[in-house]
């Protein structure tokens, strides 16, 4: 019996002492890294910067609203016609033109707001952590380069936010539990925002080189391209021209042939910055479906099935509008047709081929006419589409594409340079830069360039690359251009049957996106909504 007692006593003591170690109740990270690691060592910062690239890719692979998110600015520009799906609601102003129960504003613009501020907070952490390491004497070679990339992301996020929303505020300190509930009461003045953007980009430009072994990272030329954009926005044309000249003269980048610009994975000398995808690879990202939205739903027509030659699987949610189609057709032999854009879908299915058609004939059964509402089918199934996002390695029926997405390329640098020199009165330089792009596309050079020439060339060269809306807004032309040729006239009238003609809905104040109510609710009570929205 005594033994039993002793046995119990030992058990009791054994268990009890094990409980009273100091850290028994400590909560520990067992399978995750801590945030402290990310910002307190050069390796952590390197890791966090790679995380920024992955975050930056996020909008392109969002599959909300049938994948509308990465095409919203294109939809709101003057070059697109929205036909179907959620993306069309942005182009015809059913969504995203107001704040009253507007799901598009709430969800999509709210995402833009939150996504960019998330990048900003992470870069704030990286920058303050990195600067502390530098102050402590860190000599890690990659640290400065990583800080430069982080600052580029911060500047780019602020630049994007400002261009979209105007009423934004600056925050350069990392959010902490103590400051998380602070509510700013007012927006920051433009000068402050631009001075931060310039400071960050100048640092990046000074500390990055023109080349990288890791395709997809920010390089000096890409940063300079963004710097030139900032100066254009601020109408500082001489500075913009100077930066562009420097890129063209000193960087290893050069224009490539038209048929190579969107070939394969975009690894060529014209690309300045691209977002990377890789199928079936860890870190390769989820798929995107931009091609599915921008190529017509030709496969619904008897005689046609999805094929690589026809641009893969398309559903025709959004397409090139007649304005830009006419611009492209206004020159004979514009080689961008067929390389950037697909104008003809060809019969390719023996089994369902209608009488009177031959394999290889272009689809031409619909026209953009009011009679019998035929225009609707024309836009949905036959209208010229965009193949800049087309991944030619997927099955023709697959809507999930993994092609890298072009963000900035040298052709745009040339056109920005043309505009800057034109504004500075240097017509010969403007002509040289503009014609470099025109001649490359196989169309005739112009002798006395105008702003209209440049904007038209931007439309032809860069349609659906996400810059059009910004360019028109910065020139103060967005409202006028939309009134002239938004969507397509017949589509606008068709929308009016149920609602209102989008041209009547769209107002001059809408060049600034509304700040979603859900965002405003969590800011200070006096934080200003953009003018015109109430």
């Amino acid at each position: 019996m005594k033994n039993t007692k002793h046995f119990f006593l030992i058990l009791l003591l054994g268990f009890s002492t094990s409980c009273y170690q100091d850290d028994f109740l400590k909560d520990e990270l067992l399978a995750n890294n801590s945030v402290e690691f990310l910002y307190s060592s050069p390796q952590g910062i390197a890791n966090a910067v790679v995380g920024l690239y992955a975050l930056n890719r996020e909008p392109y692979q969002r599959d909300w609203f049938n994948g509308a998110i990465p095409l919203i600015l294109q939809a709101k520009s003057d070059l697109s016609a929205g036909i179907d799906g959620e993306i069309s609601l942005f182009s015809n102003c059913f969504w995203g033109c107001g704040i009253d129960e507007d799901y598009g504003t709430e969800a999509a613009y709210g995402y833009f707001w939150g996504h960019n501020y998330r990048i900003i907070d992470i870069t704030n952490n990286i920058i303050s952590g990195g600067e502390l390491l530098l102050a402590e004497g860190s000599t890690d070679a990659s640290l400065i380069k990583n800080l430069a990339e982080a600052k580029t992301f911060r500047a780019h996020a602020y630049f994007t936010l400002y261009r979209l929303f105007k009423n934004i505020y600056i925050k350069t300190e990392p959010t902490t539990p103590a400051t998380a509930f602070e509510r700013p009461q007012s927006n920051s003045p433009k000068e402050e925002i631009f001075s931060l953007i310039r400071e960050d980009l100048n640092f990046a430009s000074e500390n990055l080189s023109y080349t990288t072994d890791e395709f997809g990272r920010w390089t000096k030329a890409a940063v300079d391209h963004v710097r030139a954009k900032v100066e254009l926005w601020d109408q500082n044309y001489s500075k913009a021209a100077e930066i562009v000249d420097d890129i063209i003269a000193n960087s290893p980048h050069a224009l490539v042939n038209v048929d190579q610009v969107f070939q394969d994975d975009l690894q060529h000398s014209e690309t300045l910055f691209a977002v990377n995808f890789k199928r079936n690879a860890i870190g390769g990202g989820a798929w995107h479906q931009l091609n599915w939205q921008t190529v017509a739903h030709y496969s619904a027509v008897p005689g046609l099935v999805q094929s690589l030659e026809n641009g893969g699987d398309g559903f025709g949610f959004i397409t090139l509008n007649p304005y830009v189609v006419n611009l492209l057709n206004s020159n004979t032999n514009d080689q961008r047709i067929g390389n950037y854009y697909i104008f003809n879908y060809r019969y390719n299915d023996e089994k369902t081929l209608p009488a009177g058609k031959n394999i290889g004939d272009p689809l031409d059964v619909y026209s953009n006419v009011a009679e019998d509402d035929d225009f609707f089918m024309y836009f949905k199934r036959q209208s010229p589409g965009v193949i800049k996002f087309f991944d030619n390695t997927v099955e023709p029926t697959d809507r999930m594409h993994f092609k890298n997405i072009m963000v900035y390329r040298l052709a745009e640098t040339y056109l920005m340079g043309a505009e800057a020199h034109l504004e500075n009165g240097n017509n010969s330089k403007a002509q040289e830069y503009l014609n470099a792009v025109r001649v490359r596309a196989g169309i005739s050079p112009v002798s006395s360039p105008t702003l209209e020439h440049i904007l038209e060339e931007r439309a032809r060269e860069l349609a659906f690359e996400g810059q059009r809306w910004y360019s028109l807004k910065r020139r103060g032309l967005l409202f006028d251009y939309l009134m002239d040729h938004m969507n397509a006239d017949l589509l606008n009238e068709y929308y009016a049957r149920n609602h209102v003609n989008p041209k009547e809905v769209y107002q001059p104040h809408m060049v600034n996106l509304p700040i979603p109510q859900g965002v405003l609710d969590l800011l200070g009570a006096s934080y200003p909504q953009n003018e015109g929205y109430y």
Partner: protein
Amino acid sequence: MRGFRILTMWMSKSFLLTFLLFIELSVFGQDLTLSGTISDADTNEPLPGATVVIEGTNTGAISDFDGKYTIRVAVGNTLSFSSIGYKTETRVISQADQLNISLTPNNELDEIVVVGYGSQKRSNIVGSVATVNVDKATQNPTTNVSELLRGRAAGVQVNLGDARPGGNSNIVIRGNVSVAGGNSPLIIVDGLPYDSLNDIAPDDIANIEILKDAASTSIYGARASNGVILVTTKKARAGYSSFNYSGFVTTQTLTRNFEIYDGQGFYDFRMDAWKARLGVDNPPLKFVWNENELDFIYNDNIVDWEDLALNDALLTSHSLSYSSGTEKSTVYSSLNYFTQDGIIPNSGFDRLQFKLNYSHQLTDKLSLDGIINIQNANQSRETGGLFLANITPIAKPYDDEGNLVKYYFGQENASAINPLWDQRESVDETETNLTDISLRFNYDLAPQLTYSLKTFYRNRNTDQGTYRSSLHSAGDEGINGVGVLIDTQYKQLLVEHIVNYQVLDNELHNLDFTGVHSYDEQNFKYNQLDKSDFVNDALGYNGLASTLLNNSRDVWRRRVLSFMGRARYSYQDKYLLEMTTRADGASVFSENNKWGWFPALSVAYKVDQDLNLDSIDQLKVRLSYGATGNQGINPLESLGVANYNPYTFGDLTVSGSSASSRLRNPNLQWETTTTLNGGVDFGLFSNRIRGTVEYYKSNTTDLLLDRQLASSSGYTVTRFNVGELQNTGLEVTLNNSLIRTKEVNFDLGLIWSTNNNEILSLTGETQINPQTGEEYFIDITDSSGRRLSIGQSINSLWMAEYGGIYQEADFLEGSPITPRVGAKPGHIRVIDQNQDGILDINDNIFINADPDWYGSINATLRVKNFDLFMDWYFVQGVTRVNSILANGEYWKASTNGPVVPYYTPESPSTEWPMANANAAWLKYLNSFAAKDASYQRLRTVTVGYNFGDSLNQLLRTKSGRLYFTGTNLLTFTDFLSYSPEQDLRAGVFPETLNMTLGMKLTF
């Protein structure tokens, strides 16, 4: 399945072994043969199956069908006579050979009820403890044990979670006391914490008690703020052996209160939607239908998807148990097998459970209790997101040769995937293995002082595999099959030291102390592998694959350390007092806030003892006040976590990380719920009318809240302690024995509960309305999108108020209504609350989603050997958004759905809006779809026959029962769905109407 068979074999072996080991060994050699009859003292009916045991030995006998027993004893021995439901009698044997005994039925009030860390005579319970009638509860055939509690106890609300075979339901006791800390009650089975009631076989359950007020639950401290469900499983009794079989078979049938459009109906529905979209009377067919659809319409290719895909399905349960006991040791052992097919092919569940409850007196001071549970469960699920009610009936799922096709609109419409095809090409299986071992040593340090060491170890491994074959729409097109393998390991270790000290036990005073020290550690590991490019489809997810798409790993740990003390005192068995105090430390809280302290006090007065009225058998008033804590949040929320976020630069994958979008909170601490509870228990007219009325008010402070952060902070959410929430409620339980004769019994039970939930305070932050200058407390949005506002329930919908459907007349001059801009007749109207002509968030209202009240009425009628049981369940005043009605695709007639008399210019509905193929007008669908989901349901009807003597003799059974049960037979509700608790949406698994035939035999 192979593992399952091995387990079955192994289990049957061990079962047999146990069976052989514990067959009682009777020892003979006494010098007197004693016999007699045991009968019921009230009715004088003989009592079969009563136990006669010689005290201090393991020798005994059992009375036969006529109540007769025979036993050999020595003169001077003491015999104890006992039977379930009767008071035990003892006699010292003198020189006699005949001894007839009549046993008095137990007074319900003398029943011993299990409470936290001990037991208590029912009449001496001070807190709020509800007892579930297990016989009534187990009438429904299910493995979803939570459903057994529905309508069985006041204040206990059961909400259908997942009607899929192997699914579960959510239990809420006395309303939601927490916003984010979880509202599931703590489940204690035989003194051990369980994660899910579904881990118990219904046939093993002996008792269920529900502890509702803080005074009763505080002994469990951490996690007990949502109430405690105490389950006791069956144990053997000394000197009695029995062998039980119980089995049933059930058919499950689809039931619903809506029709979906057939071919013609859907054709008209979509044409009407396009009429509205295009604003013309005859929309060109080419807009509305694609070429294939037109072809199908002309050729009458119409599909009834539910008819094709759903089948009536069977559910079968077998359970065997053996129980036997001697004075020194008792053993209860059971084997349960349950198998259920779902009405959606490919879905199903089977489970094999083995249980052993063993007690042994090792020495005169040391005893041992052991519990072993072993389970193997297999769940298969249908392919994800299946929603048959939603698919167009104009389709062609089979080709002309009768083979299933992949695309029901033909190859060129690759997004129209035949659900039957994907169903055939998908596998989703989850195997769960659970092992529980508990050993408890009790040592009597002194006659009044006992020390117990309780140890418990749980191991739960879950292995899930899903496979989408190379033909499935998610695994085709060069992917060559996609497999996901998920492996989780969960281990729990619990050690408790318990000391019991009976200080006083005499006529006047009764005082006892209980002290507990416990530690609880839970460890969780998770592995996931996503693979593609399988060699072929033959081996499913077990096959070899050449591409690793993703792998992830998660590990977490939770520890709780507790110290508890309780004193119970009664004076003259009339005045009762109970005090509890408890200190808990939980690892999930921040560095300096690990510990919480939770005291409780309760008193009761047995008024009946002073009244001495014949008509009043019991009248007890109770009052309690106490606190409990909640630590039901995830680990790591006080720490900053980085998520893996790699990127590919060219062909190179580079590792990257991003801060989690959840901001750490370094001040995270306990959420505390303080409950005041008052109750009256009464029993009148020889306990023919028994009941309890209770009122409670519980206040939760430092609410653990997932608070949404301004997105400009860079984060989306943080865990936060804030504010105060109050739940008040009234509960009534009534049991009436209206007829109580030898031949006929009729009992009527009524349970009614109401709960009111209100937020009293939030962060205390204020804002000033720039328009009015008025200062107000800010609302908070939690991470699930619920808006929390002072004065409102936490389960509120915040939306514009639905105000009907716009009619032509509303647009005429002089109409009292000013339609909103852009509205047309047939559109949804919402109310401009502040009448400023603008519809915005200032017009939103809060709609309380919780029920006003809920309850049940059950009736039991017994006539001789036949019985009839009927159970009605009521929920009143609950609001739920019906997803399908809020779905724009349905109103665009892009998808099928319930047939409703929607608005058309020819027959303008005032209840249902217009179908319109244009998404642009789809505003305020949520307001429209927030529907009253009140309902009345005949949940159960059971007709049973209990074997009479002659049948028992014939079958050599001690007792037997045959029964037929119908479940979910009738439902009255306006809410369109398979069940009023099921939101109609993709992935929903319909709750079914069930018919059961069952049998119970005891040998």
